[in-house]
Structures are given as structure tokens and as C-alpha cells.
């Protein structure tokens, strides 16, 4: 079952068990933010560290570097927890973006230009868009199910996009799939997931 912790990597965390995939993770980040809770932090570590390590190694880091980066990511989770806003993104998404940016910084030695949502110069959302983040705790469970329902060739390409540090034009050349096909498959996959995200609300 994707998304569920296995006994091997997280013996201490069975108490939160299946609540993980939903708002449980969000609550733990909030506990770190509000109470500086080390036990909540340890639970987050037990869930995310092995997954982050796997993600970073898939993107080419060796085990040593991956573990170093995992520590950097989790330190940032600790120090920046008060900036976590479950109305913007759930915990997994927030931590994914931290890991993505740390990796760009460490491996590519580039800065990562990021939008600043508190910037007064930002053009604001239209008012009607504000209701989108309902049930954000359920979002990933729904997304995981939606990804599981994609045709294999779409799901595989979408994974590759997240797991390869190259634009998908390069992926196309390497996989021997015409660029137009890569683009249309990715487009179909993304459109479908976005539609399912909207419908679920």
C-alpha cells in the first residue's frame, strides 16, 4: 500500500498508524510549530526521513549525501515550522518543496527562485478561488488514489518527471518516446489529476 508506513522503518510510530496519510502529518508539523514538540518532530522524521532519502537517491545522490540532505531538510522543518500553512499545502507537499530546493542548492549549486506569498507586490487571488483548499488533509489520499488510476504509461512518465533532474524533452530522447507523445501523456496525466483534485471538493 503506497503511502503507508511499514513496520521496518518506523517501529515507534504505529500509534499514529494510518492517520499518517491525512491530517495527522499536518498536525505534527503544527505541534512542532506551536509547541516546539520534539516527539512530534521525531515522528515526522521517522515517517519522512526514509522517504526523503529514497527520493534523493533516486535523483542521483549517494547514500551519504542523501542522508546529509535529509538532515538539512528536517532541520529546516524544525526551524521553519511556523511558516507551514496547511491551507496552502499539506505537510508532504511542503516537505517535498523543501527537499526539492535543498537538492537544487546542494547538487546543482543553483539558487531556487521561489515566489514569496507574503510579498505586497503579489497580484492577489480572485476571491472565488479561496475555497479551494478545503479538506487539505484528504488531498494526498485522493491524489494517491488518482495516480493509481492513471494509465500506466502516463503514471510512469509523470513519476519520471519528478524523479529525473532533467526537462522532459531530455527524458523523451532517453526513453526513445517522441517528444509530442511525452508531452501529450504528461498533459493528460496532469489534467486528469487536477480535475480529480477539484472534483473531490
Amino acid at each position, binding site marked *: 500500500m503506497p503511502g503507508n508506513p511499514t513496520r521496518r522503518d518506523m517501529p515507534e510510530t504505529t500509534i499514529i498508524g494510518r492517520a499518517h496519510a491525512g491530517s495527522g502529518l499536518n498536525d505534527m508539523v503544527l505541534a512542532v510549530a506551536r509547541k516546539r514538540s520534539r516527539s512530534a518532530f521525531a515522528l515526522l522524521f521517522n515517517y519522512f526521513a526514509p522517504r526523503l532519502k529514497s527520493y534523493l537517491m533516486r535523483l542521483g545522490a549517494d547514500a551519504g549525501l542523501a542522508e546529509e540532505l535529509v538532515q538539512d531538510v528536517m532541520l529546516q522543518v524544525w526551524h521553519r515550522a511556523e511558516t507551514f500553512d496547511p491551507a496552502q499545502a499539506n505537510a508532504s507537499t511542503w516537505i*517535498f518543496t523543501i527537499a526539492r530546493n535543498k537538492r537544487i542548492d546542494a547538487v546543482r549549486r543553483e539558487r531556487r527562485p521561489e515566489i514569496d506569498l507574503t510579498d505586497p507586490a503579489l497580484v492577489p487571488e480572485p476571491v472565488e478561488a479561496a475555497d479551494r483548499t478545503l479538506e487539505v488533509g484528504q488531498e494526498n489520499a485522493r491524489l494517491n488514489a488518482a495516480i493509481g488510476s492513471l494509465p500506466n504509461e502516463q503514471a510512469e512518465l509523470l513519476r519520471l518527471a519528478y524523479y529525473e533532474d532533467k526537462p522532459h524533452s531530455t527524458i523523451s530522447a532517453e526513453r526513445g518516446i517522441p517528444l509530442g507523445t511525452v508531452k501529450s501523456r504528461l498533459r493528460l496525466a496532469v489534467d486528469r489529476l487536477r480535475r480529480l483534485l477539484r472534483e473531490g471538493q
Partner: protein
Amino acid sequence: MIRNPTHHPDREMLLDYADGSLGEPAALVVATHLAFCPGCRQQVADLEAIGGAFLEEEEPFPVSADCLPGLLARLDEPAGAAAAPLPGAARRSEAADLTYLPEPLRSYIGMPLSALPWQPLLEGIDEVDLGVGRPPMRTRLIRVAAGTVFPRHGHTGMELNLVLAGGYHDPRGSFQRGDVVVDDPSINHSPVADLRESCVCLSVTDAPLCLVEGPACFLKPSIRS
């Protein structure tokens, strides 16, 4: 009046931005466009949520036994290098002069547009190199005086433009603040800056532009090394 952009990065570029594979110069264009464009912001948020879902799906790879204890011992250290720079009070007060440009571009430039060391490029056209990206990639601000006709040119590679102020048009349409325009080798044009004010663009190129008539490429060929 706020007008939302009508020309956007294509969905593939938003995906490359969200999954982290887009290089810094193009990512700077996309991220700055996001500040102008709530719709693309939403798309990127959705794409990042897909990244979050994939992270949950990852097959866990065990970390070494001393990883967590080592980390717990470091929690009381000052944030220092671990935390990315916060949008702090200092930057906020500078923003008074710089509100014209949104983040992240504002921090990359660090001064008002008028204070930049503009270099003349062609009649009525100035540029500043921002030094982002590795050659032959170039990231520049280009300022074109109101009403100036840009000499007809072709593209030997890709050019990615984000309109920051003013606007311009070519046969494809009119491009205004926040719009992203991609010029590839199939594009041969002579864009014209709108009359009301200077047009300023953030421009990323991976190869020189070439004048169709006239001496040759007007961007120093040496950048191709």
C-alpha cells in the same frame, strides 16, 4: 489597474518548475510570472501536491541509526545556514522603493530599475546582465524606449521573455506586464514597444539573437565560448 497575464508558460514548463528540473534562469522567469498570475500559481501548487503524493509513495530507504539522535542534538543550534533567508523586516522596508517588481526578481536585482547600470545595446535599447546561469545562458533585463521598433531578428536558440513594465507587440499579439513569451528559431520578428512607457523585460536566452539585416549577431558571440 491590475490586468492578469494572458500569455503563460506552457504546462510542461510549469511542471519542470514544480518538479525542480528547470534551470535557475528559466525558473526565475516562471517564479516571477507566478507573482503576477494567480492561475499559474494554482497550477504549480497542484503540481507540487503531486510531488508530495509521490513522496508519500516512496519506498522507504532506512536511514542510519545515528541520523535522528544527531539531528535532535542539533535542534537547539541557531538556525544559521539551515534556514533559508526569511523575508525579513529589512527587505520589507526596502520594498517601498521596489514594489514595482515582485519577488523573487526583486531580491535578484536588489535596487530600483532606474538605479541599475544599464548598457546601451542598440538605439533606444539598453540591457543589464543579471549574471544568472552559466554561459551560453544569459539572463538580462532589456529596456526598450517607448515606441521603439526592435530591429528585425531571428533566434538561434530559445528566448524566454517576461514583460515587467510597459508592453510590446509583434504579429502574434500584444504582450503586457506579467506575460511570458517564448521565441524559438521559428520566430523572426521586429517587435515594437508600446507608446505609453518604456518596455522592460526579463529575458533569458541560450544563444545569441541574429539581426536579419546588418552586421551579424548583436549579442557578443564570445558568450558562446
